[in-house]
């Protein structure tokens, strides 16, 4: 009996160790120069923190005909803080009957609860609020929900990810699964984990959303980028989140 228990334990330990070493996933962070990594790690050097601060101010500002601030509903006593929230998006919205990403959730709060106009896609306010919320999940594992209602969206995200597109006729998977770690001219192709978004890109000199990143990749292969409001982005984001399940949220990150 003891013997069996030991064997079981050994097998379990070996499997566990294997699972540990078999995880080849790696954030784009790991491929950056130490100076850029330091910028992401140090709040006083991370330019994205400007947006986080702005987001914090917006969080407390009443808007819309309901004249409510985000903070009015999300009091510690009522809906709690935002820790862990960004880590589980995209998620199912019963109100809309479809999957939405974090930006979509903020827009929903704005239109439904605050009764104000939606914010413009990729606007400074939307990015600031997203960064403020995402910052509160920093260090937490990506926890994409195990929700059957998301299945169809997840499947379409996977299909989009594996589909060749554009004049260069390349799929996301061909670069980010098959050739990650290789050099595309000067750039190391990352595994395309969404863990650091929204992030500050030195090249953009600004904070940008995951959608902006995906649009850059689409434009790179000379495909027509989907409009910002397209469900294709949410589907891709969900697929990327599932791929990154358990990895640490780094938002708001920095990339060269």
């Amino acid at each position, binding site marked *: 009996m003891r013997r069996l228990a030991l064997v079981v334990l050994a097998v379990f330990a070996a499997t566990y160790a294997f699972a540990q070493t078999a995880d080849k996933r790696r954030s784009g962070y790991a491929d950056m120069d130490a100076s850029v990594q330091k910028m992401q790690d140090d709040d006083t050097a991370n330019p994205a923190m400007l947006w986080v601060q702005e987001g914090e101010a917006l969080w407390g500002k009443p808007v819309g005909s309901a004249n409510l601030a985000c903070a009015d509903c999300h009091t510690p006593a009522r809906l709690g803080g935002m820790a862990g929230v960004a880590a589980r998006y995209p998620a199912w919205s019963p109100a809309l009957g479809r999957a939405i990403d974090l930006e979509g959730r903020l827009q929903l709060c704005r239109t439904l609860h605050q009764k104000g106009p939606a914010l413009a896609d990729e606007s400074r306010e939307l990015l600031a609020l997203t960064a403020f919320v995402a910052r509160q999940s920093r260090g937490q594992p990506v926890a994409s929900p195990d929700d059957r209602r998301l299945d169809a969206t997840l499947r379409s995200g996977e299909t989009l990810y594996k589909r060749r597109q554009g004049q260069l*006729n390349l799929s996301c998977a061909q*670069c980010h699964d098959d050739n990650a770690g290789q050099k*595309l001219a000067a750039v190391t192709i990352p595994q395309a984990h969404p863990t650091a978004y929204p992030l500050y890109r030195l090249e953009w000199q600004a904070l940008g959303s995951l959608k902006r990143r995906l649009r850059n990749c689409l434009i*790179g292969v*000379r*495909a*027509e980028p989907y409009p910002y409001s397209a469900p294709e982005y949410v589907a891709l984001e969900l697929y990327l989140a599932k791929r990154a399940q358990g990895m640490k949220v780094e938002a708001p990150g920095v990339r060269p």
Partner: protein
Amino acid sequence: MRAWPLLAVALLACPVPSHADEELRSFLIVGDAIPDTLTGKPGDAARGRTVVATRQQGLCLLCHSGPFPEERFQGNLAPSLAGAGGRWSEAQLRLRLVDAQRLNPDTIMPPYYKVSGLQRVAPAFAGKTLLSAEQIEDVVAYLATLKD
């Protein structure tokens, strides 16, 4: 420095060569090759080198490396172009440029002379080939000189 996104911007900004005005020339594939030139005349190797070495034109060095000491950043997603002319005939090189997927369905090498069967091509590039028939012949002529 950020070659890839800059490239994307550069591609969008630069006027698209007028390959669209030109009818897609017909060609015959024999085995793993296209024996006849697309233009009826041989290409110009010097011009071909420029197409390959100029990122905005050929995009070749995104993925390939080759004998281009002046180009600092060359990709490593694909075999070096050095020696390509020793490994393949002009006819074989032509098909590899025109539509490499004919030889390897999973290839990442873009089809340089093909407009059909592509999905969601950006309007600025729709119906246009990556390179013109003349450019294909120039590149073939250049690659053929890369004997070792």
